């Protein structure tokens, strides 16, 4: 628990609290997770196969409305990896941007007073 740790310095706290997210790191890792995720969702249905007259993954197939060429098939799974990666990359970048931006804004307001501080 927090009470048990040794007294931290201001610097350690501030470095930890106001640390930035690396945008490229976020883009790649989120893209990977989204891409693999959509591929897994697709291929899991493909592997299970058709059940009676119901087509494979009718709901997931709706994604084809938004992602041209996407289907719940083997090839669709790999295309889903690409699409998922693209969307994940954008989401990852957006999150890192917002995270860094919100911290900069917060710090900017705090730091702005420094400008008026020296006498």
């Amino acid at each position, binding site marked *: *628990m*927090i*009470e*048990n*740790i*040794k*007294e*931290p*310095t*201001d*610097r*350690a*706290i*501030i*470095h*930890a*609290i*106001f*640390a*930035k997210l*690396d945008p*490229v*790191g*976020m883009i*790649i*890792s*989120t893209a*990977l*997770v989204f891409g693999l*995720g959509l591929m897994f969702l697709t291929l*899991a*249905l493909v592997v299970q196969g058709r059940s009676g007259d119901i087509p494979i*993954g009718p*709901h997931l197939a*709706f994604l084809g*409305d*938004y992602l041209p060429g996407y289907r719940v098939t083997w090839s669709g799974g790999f295309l889903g990896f690409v699409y998922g990666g693209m969307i994940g990359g954008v*989401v990852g970048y*957006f*999150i890192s*941007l*917002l*995270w*860094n*931006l919100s*911290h900069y*804004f*917060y710090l*900017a*307001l*705090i*730091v*702005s*007073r*420094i*400008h*008026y*501080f*020296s*006498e």
Partner: protein
Amino acid sequence: MNQEFLRAAIRINTKLLALVFGLTSGLLLFTATIVSVVLRALHPGHYEFLNLLGVFLPGYDVSVTGAFLGFFWGAVIGALFGSLIYWAYARTLREKIASYFALEDPDNLLQGPQTLKIEGHYLGVATGLGSALLLFLSTNTLVIRGTAQFSVNAALLSNYLPGYQVSFVGSLIGSAELFVLVYLITILFGFTYNKVVALRNRDIPSLFDYEPARPKPIPLKPADHVCILGAGPAGLATGHELSLNGTKVTVLEKNSYVGGLCRTVHSKGYKFDLGGHRWFTQNESLNNWFRRLMEGEIILVNRISRIYYDGKYFNYPITFGDVIKNTGIFTMLWAGITYIQSFIVFNVLNRPVKNMKDAYTQQFGSKLYEMFFKIYTEKVWGLPCEQLSADWVTQRSKGLNILTVIREALVKSRNVVSLVEEFMYPRDGYVRIPERMAEDIVGAGNEVLLNSGVKKIIYKGTRDFEIVYRSQDGTERSVHADSVVSTIPMGILAQIIEPACEEKVLKAAKSMEFRDLITVNLMLKKKQVSTDTWLYLQDKNLIFGRLHEPKNWSPAMVPDEAHTSVVLEVFCTINDPLWSLSDDEIAIRCVDDLADKLGFIERHEVEGWTVIRTGHAYPVYDLDYHNKVSIVTEFLGRFEGLHIAGRGGTFRYNNADHSIEMGLMLGRKILGQPVDHMQVNTEHTYHEEKSLEGPKRDHYGQSAVG
């Protein structure tokens, strides 16, 4: 205190991550809905899939209105999810900070100086829990509303989560499985992110810098006789520390008073500082020294400051609420856009930071730069920000202690009294600090010679100086000393020391410019003008850049309760159009601006004024200043036994407390302690736990020896 700071910081970050996730989720759902609306118009009968979300998000459907509702619901759920994630990350943080202190290994905490390291385990637990909770709640929503058997869409999840059903038991099984799945995915995510960041291994620009440890200074052989040039705060502090430890000291001051820029002028029953200096330092040892020195004379003053911009007053410290109230949400949005723009320009396209404008814009974006920095800065320096060095921004930040400011800002949210908003002040004006030091120096049997301007310094060999000065009676005299402490402007020192410098040094020394200051004290038959301790004026049309009301600092600054005064600072350069105005012309323009543009006074309330002109007030950090300082410093470094200190002496923007600390540390250095006074006013020493070597005593106690 720091534990409280840590908690406050975690709370703030929890809110910020909630904001980030809320906005991301809200915008995602908004965008997906709008895209569906547009495509559905082109292909009727399709793009209805998102309508299913209406079961869980009241009012939501695939429509324009639904898009806004979707934004709302997405933001709410995202914010909750973000809070949960940061709550989990905080566990990591605490553990990492604890191990950081145990191992003294900063790499354990962060990737590089400023980049977040993601701990997959804790993040996985948080996201897993969040996802499982979401599935549990949404499934049981269907169960409770009695539509479980019709929820074929939800039931399809069993394709991925074996055993999942739209039932209470099914939701428990599904949630457990989802937890494991999400946990594993997050581990993958964290692993990938950390690997990529480690491979990139580069620092992301930050408002504060990580500094490596510096080598320990080598102790000097103690001096026998020290001649100090200038009786400002730095020179007197050195003399004070040396005198109280038995070293012979001679202080030479060209003016008829001590204090330098920390002068308090007495005029017609009024007292006023040149600009209003406060005592503020986070160094508690220095505060103790100050309390001892000024025993019985200290009063506490509340800091109430405002900033005047675009006809409006912004409270200090600036808050989101205040800015939005005064400028409107659109200005803030515009500020956000300009920040993104500058982020791309400086951090993505890697445009170099060449000057002060770039430095401010990189950190705050162009809109905030224009609002809060540009006008006042250009007024102070008399140059466009494009012609000033970016170093000023970092130096000013370091000079204040960004760490403290951030801590104050965060902890203040729990109503902790902020040091920043209260300061100590000598009841009879700031000059009492230098006066007290001078009294102690003289009391120790040493000399403080006024009206004694230095003419020449002759270096006769290692630690052997002759200092020639014009004495009070007009004759030239000299002092012999084995050490010299110079607080006179660095460029002037280089020109009067012998052996003379070479042409390159002379050229650099002569081009080290200072900004000058005209201070106007208006005496008013009025009880009070405002409650401000300072008012900063970001308006090109006003002749002055800052004002303060001495009576708000100390009642002793005015002759009686029925009167007050206002001190106005006019930033200028000797021989420029402002400086060339007569005292009365300047004062009248100040009265006009105060009465007509600000409405602070009526003309008939003005009973008189005092105008003081001060040279060498602020070292000008032009684009080549660093090179000039290096050249001159290298030259001065050739004279063993010569030390520099103070604002002018080091060409560094010291506050009064910096100068005093620098002087005290220099005194200790000359006494043979292993300290480096030039580290004052750099973040490294000024803001962290003091790491000064020396005697085991209260840092600035009665004796520096033993």
